[in-house]
């Protein structure tokens, strides 16, 4: 964490910290990185905080990082403090050396903190366990199957048993491969009309059900990455009520769009997981407002040329590295999310899921949390207008 050696006075910003139940407009100062709820007479720079929010910095639970240096700098300018980097790189992040390299590149620039996610299986092939403990020790905050299939349920169960031994957090993209095979979008009326092969709801819900039952047997600490179905939320809620260590996130795209957006074959909406129905979108929004699930970017970048092709041939994924919170603010403007719940889902809950130290995300006086001052109007228009402190 870098500490600025100066004093910044922020006048009349809206301070929001859902973990402390704080939502108030007031003047604060940041002295050498330390947060003070008072005016400082010896301020080096003054910022007019009206129209701005001061929040624990955003935490992205899943992003495909192509260029650590450029991406981390861009993210910091958008108010993002931490980005979890998926291991589906070349080479796959499945050894401690890979992790060290990432750290070195990250530390060389003034960007946000990149949190590497390690592979659950060697080479992400879904067959052999990766060196989970070593990866965790080297700095992997969690391990994931990164949208790749695990060979079978027996292997999945063993992954969980092994991870549970060291209380390692596992991020799972739940999808039943044989049902999802060949699918390009959500199975339903739109897919039928467009003639695109559909991915039925059961491809996700069956995988979620199986994974939950195994989690119960193995006592694993499990996080579902990017769920898309209303039914999945119900099952996850029930599992949590039973006391299982389960969490989940939703990709921003699934809160904004539905399968109907695919009409016209815009390959921007060729996504994994697919966009589901309006009923699912409403359930996901309700879950966010109920503080049950986190929001992430699900950033999967591709070049414009790779997207200018038929729907089936176009690259999958949306470029949301710096814009996901802006899209969230859009939902707040529309009245579909409250600002507090958006911040909770984008900062507080991810921090709790990743078990980051409280001092890094709670806006307590005389501490040095990683925070972001975001200009609401600018951010809503998609401009990266944020200052991120202590990262």
């Amino acid at each position, binding site marked *: 964490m870098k500490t600025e050696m100066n004093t910044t006075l922020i006048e009349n910003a809206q301070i929001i910290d859902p973990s402390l139940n704080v939502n108030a407009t007031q003047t604060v100062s940041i002295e050498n990185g330390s947060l003070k709820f008072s005016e400082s007479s010896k301020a080096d720079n003054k910022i007019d905080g009206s129209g701005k929010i001061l929040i624990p910095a955003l935490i992205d639970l899943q992003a495909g990082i192509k260029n650590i240096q450029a991406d981390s700098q861009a993210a910091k300018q958008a108010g993002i403090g931490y980005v979890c980097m998926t291991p589906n790189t070349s080479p796959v992040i499945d050894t401690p050396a890979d992790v060290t390299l990432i750290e070195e590149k990250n530390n060389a620039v003034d960007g946000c903190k990149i949190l590497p996610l390690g592979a659950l299986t060697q080479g992400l092939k879904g067959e052999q366990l990766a060196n989970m403990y070593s990866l965790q020790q080297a700095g992997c905050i969690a391990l994931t199957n990164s949208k790749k299939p695990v060979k079978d349920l027996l292997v999945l169960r063993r992954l969980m048993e092994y991870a549970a031994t060291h209380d390692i957090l596992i991020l799972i993209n739940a999808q039943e491969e044989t049902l999802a095979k060949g699918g390009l979008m959500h199975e*339903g*009326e*739109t*897919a*039928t*009309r*467009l*003639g*695109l092969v559909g991915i039925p709801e059961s491809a996700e819900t069956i995988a979620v059900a199986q994974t939950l039952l195994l989690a119960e047997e193995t006592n694993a600490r499990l996080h579902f990455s990017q769920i898309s179905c209303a039914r999945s939320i119900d099952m996850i809620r029930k599992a949590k009520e039973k006391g299982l260590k389960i969490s989940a996130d939703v990709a921003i795209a699934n809160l*904004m769009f539905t399968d*109907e*957006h695919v*009409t*016209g*074959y*815009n*390959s*921007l909406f060729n996504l994994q997981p697919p966009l589901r129905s309006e009923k699912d979108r409403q359930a996901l929004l309700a879950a966010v407002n109920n503080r049950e699930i986190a929001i992430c970017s699900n950033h999967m970048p591709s070049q414009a*040329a790779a997207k*200018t*092709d*038929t*729907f*089936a*041939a176009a690259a999958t994924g*949306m*470029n*949301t590295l*710096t*814009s996901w919170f*802006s*899209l969230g603010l*859009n939902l707040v*403007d*529309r009245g579909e999310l409250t600002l507090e719940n958006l911040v909770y889902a984008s900062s507080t809950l991810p921090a709790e899921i990743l078990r980051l130290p409280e001092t890094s995300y709670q806006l307590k006086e005389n501490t040095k949390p990683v925070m972001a001052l975001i200009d609401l109007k600018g951010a*809503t*228009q*998609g401009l990266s207008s944020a200052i991120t402190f202590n990262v």
Partner: protein
Amino acid sequence: MNDLISQLLSSPDASLPSPTEVASKVQLNSKGRLKHFLTTEGLSKELLTEILDTADSFISTQERSVKKVPLLRGQTVVNLFFENSTRTRSTFELAAKRLSADILNLDIARSATSKGETLMDTLWNLQAMYSDMFVIRHADSGAAHIIAEKITPNVAIINAGDGRHAHPTQAMLDMLTIRRHKGTIEGQTVAIVGDILHSRVARSQIHALNTLGAKEVRLIGPGTLVPKTMEALSATDEKKGAQVYYDMKEGLKDVDVIIMLRLQKERMSDALLPSESEYFKLYGLTKEKLAYAKADAIVMHPGPINRGVEIDSEVADGEQSVILNQVSYGIAVRMAVMSMAMSGQKEEQAEQESE
């Protein structure tokens, strides 16, 4: 910053256009004339009728000894078939020639383009060679739409079949057949039988039939091949787009037109059907099953027919079959849509130049 995302952020209240609006916007020029022919969806009754009327006038030119008209002389039409089909390609070739256009045939296997040249580059190179029209057949649904909307919007695109999505020229020649043998499509009860799930022809037929005023469209076949979601195609608030029947006897009752679809052998190995014999027992059109329909019902098939699988030889060659007529109308319909789309493009380009 991604285009759509910045677009969204600047106009967050813009409501999603309906599928009909999307389909009509991409195919019509500012005067509402056809400039691409991609799907029967989203086109008005007037426009579909214009296609049929124009096709009728071309039928008369096909019956005289000089079958050519000079309408598209000097224009270059390229047949771009990313998926093989000798039949469809040759009818388009013949249609172009009879309009006096210059025609180029390109069989592009998908793997050739994946050896470096993208779909985009392939098409831009062709456009640079002064092509006025592309006739496109592709294995991916939506290919023609993306090409018309995003890649080469100034080249008239005719969809010769894209994945499972649409085969509009086939649907229009089927409509012409019904009109010629029944007088009108208005008020007819039409049954489509077979593998609806994989059929681009069926989807295009359903849209056209509903737009042209058919009383009822029935879809008949097993649950694995006839999804209920098909009932939503061209549905309005008052009426479903189609009605699914699993029982052929019930489905064919008092029907005016029966359209049989081809069954592909792969359906057996994909666990969609047990065998051809069981399929024929339940859904094959025999003389006995034909009797459930009206006495003057006509039997159609987009071809090529699988005798003894979806249709009995006795019926295919029988009195009520108009299958061979369908083939003869194919050239006239294609001449009609090619002329109309070329005309709409020229009109648009003339307008743009005068601005």
